[in-house]
C-alpha cells in the first residue's frame, strides 16, 4: 500500500522534503503513520508531532485526501492505498 505524505511549514523544514511516498504492508491508522515518521526523522520531528505524553499534538493539522482528519476518525482514521496525507501547521485566527 502506498501513501503519499506532503509536508508544509515546520514539518517540511524538519524533514527537508516537499513530499515522499511510504510503502506499508498492512492497514495502518494516521497515528501509526505518525509513529513511522517520528522514528524515521528522530527528535526534531517527534518534538513537532507529539506532546510530552506521546500523544499527537494539536500543533499540526492532518488532511487525508483533502479532508481534515478531525472530521474523519481523527488519529484513528485508517488509510487506504493511494491516500495523500497533508501535514500542515494548524490554522489559528481567521
Amino acid at each position, binding site marked *: 500500500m502506498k501513501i503519499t505524505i506532503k509536508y508544509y511549514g515546520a514539518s517540511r523544514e524538519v524533514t527537508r522534503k516537499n513530499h515522499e511516498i511510504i510503502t506499508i504492508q498492512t492497514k495502518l491508522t494516521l497515528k501509526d503513520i505518525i509513529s513511522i515518521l517520528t522514528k524515521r526523522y528522530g527528535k526534531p520531528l517527534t518534538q513537532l508531532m507529539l506532546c510530552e505524553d506521546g500523544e499527537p499534538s494539536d500543533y499540526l493539522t492532518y488532511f487525508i485526501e483533502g479532508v481534515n482528519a478531525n472530521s474523519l476518525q481523527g488519529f484513528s482514521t485508517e488509510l487506504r492505498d493511494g491516500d495523500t496525507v497533508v501535514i500542515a501547521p494548524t*490554522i489559528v485566527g481567521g
Partner: protein
Amino acid sequence: MKGYAGKYLRFDLSKEKLENTVFDEATLRKYLGGVGIGSKILYDEIPPESDWFSPDNRMVIASGPLGGTAIGGSGTITIVTKGALTGGATSAQANGLFGAYLRFSGYDGIILQGISPSWKYIMIKDGSAELMDAAPFMNLDTYEVTDTLRRAHGVRNREASILSIGPAGENLVRWAGVFVDHGHSASHNGTGAVLGSKRVKAIIAFRGGELQVAHPESLKEIAQRMFKDAEWFKGTIGGVETGIKSGNASIPIMNYTTNIWNVAKADLDSFSAESIREKYQVRRDPCWGCRLLHSTMMNIPKGPFAGEVEEPEYEQMAAWGPVVGNKNVEAAMMLSGLTDRLGFENNEAGWLTGWLMECYEKGLITDKDTDGLKLNWGNVDAIKKLLEMTAHRHGFGDLLAEGVKLASEKFGEPAADLAIYTMKGNTPRGHDHRTRWAEMFDTCVSSTGTIETHMSAMSRDSQGPANPMKISTEVASTKGLMEFEDSVGTCRFNTRMNAKLIAEAVSASTGWDFTAEEGVKVGLRAVNLMKSYNLRVGIGKALDRPSKRYGSTPIDGPHAGVSIAPYWEAMLSNYYKLMGWDPDTGIPTKETLCELGLDYVIPHLH
C-alpha cells in the same frame, strides 16, 4: 523608486483639500508601509488628548511594497487609527483587491484627517482623486453601497474595488468596521466608527495604471514558492467542526459558560468545510493574485436564511454558532452575512450577544431592558433584530452600540462580571483563550487589544494552558513578525509569516538588499510606537489584562480548574523586560527606543 507608487493621498476633509504626502526612501525602508507607516503617522500626527471622533484623528489606509504584485493576496490593506473602543492604537487588515488597485492608481496609501461638512465618497481613478456627494448612497449596507456605486460608475467585473461602511459606521457604533467589496473587513477597534465620524461613506478605487517593481521575474518566482508553501490551505470556514472534534476545548461555547458543546453529530457535521462548500459554494471571488481555495461566494438557496453571503471565516461561524448557542449552520452563515452588511466587527458582535444571552438566561437582563426581545440561547430571529436595532442605535441598541465593555459597565454587577473583553476596551478574537494562554496573553498586552503576534510562530508547548513563563517569553520573542507582514500589503494565509521569504520579496520589489532581521525591526518599531502612543493616552500596565470572565477558569472540559491568573503578574514583568521595557511599568526604555531609531520618542516618555 521601484516597488512603490511613490505617494500617499492626504485628504483634509474639513477643508476639502487634497495633497500628496511623499516619504523619502530612507523613511520607507525604515517603516515600509501598512502598520509600519501607519503607526508612525498615528504617533507623529494624532494628539494623545484628542478623541477618536476628533478632526485631529487620522485614518491611514495603507498597502505596502508588495501590494498589487505577483504575491498572492497582495490586495490587502492595513488601517491604522485611534480606535473608538480603546481610544488607543488600532491596526486592522482587510484582504480583497483595494490595496492593489490603490497602488495601480498611483497611491501607496490614503491619510484621512478632518471631518467633512457633509457625507462624501472618494473616487480614485487615473492617478487622481476627488470627493463626491454620498447622499444617494446613505443608509445602504456594505453590499448595497458596493453594488450601487458599481452601477453608478458603470463598473464591470473586477474593474474597481470599493471600501465602505454600513449603517453601523454611519451611526458611530463604536464597534463598526470598514469593509472592502463583499465581506472583507478591517474592523477591530471601531475603524468604521472613525470613518463614519469623518463622514466618508465609501472609497472607490479603479484598477488602471501600472506598478514598477525592480525584479519582476524574481518576484514571480518567490510568489510561486510562497504558493507551494500555502497550497494546502482551504480556508478557515470548517474550524468549528474540526475544533470541536479535536477535543482541545479552544472553541468558545455560550459565552465561556462551558467548554463542552452539547451538539448532535448531524448538526456538527453540517459545520464542516466539506459540507458547507458542497451545499452552498457557488463561485470563487479571489483576492488579488490569490490561488488558494478561500474567499468564495456562497448561496443559501431557500428557507428562512436564504441569501448570498461571502465565505464566512472560522471566527464568524464560532460567534454565530457555539458562542450564542446556535446549532443551525445556515443561521450562522446568514448572521455572518448580516454582520458584514450592517458593518459590524464580528467578534464583538458575538461576545456582546453571548453575554446578553447568558444574562437573559440568568434573569440579570429582562424583556424590559431588551425592548421585548427574547434573548434565549440560539434565538436567531432575536439576534437579527438586535443587530439591526444596534446598527441604527434604536432603543436598546443605542446602549449596545457602545460595545461589550461600556454596555456591561452600565448594567453593573453581577451582569458586568459575565462580559468578555480586554480591559483596554475591545474584545478578543474568536477562541476560548482560557485554553490558549499565548493568545490571551498577547491579546491583553498588545496595544491594539487584539493579537499582536501569532501562536503559529511559537513552539508547540508555548501555547497553553501550561508553561506560563515560556508563553510570556515566546510572545515577546516572536513580536514584530506579524507587524512586518502587516507592513508589506499581503495576506497572512499566503505569506504565512515566513520572514525570510517576505524579505526576499521586498528586495525583489524594491531593489533593496532587504533582510528578515530588518523586517522584524520594522515590526518592532510599529509595536513600540503604538505602545508609546498608548502610554501617552493613558493606556498602561493596569489595562494589560483580561476582564473577570475573559480571564476566568474553565469549569469543565479537559482544562477544568486550570487558570492563568496566578501567573499573570510574573508573565507581565518577564514580557516587559524581554521587550526592552521597564519590567514594572511597561514603558519602553531609552535604550530600546534608540536601538530602533525612535530617539524622538524618548522625551515624551522619560
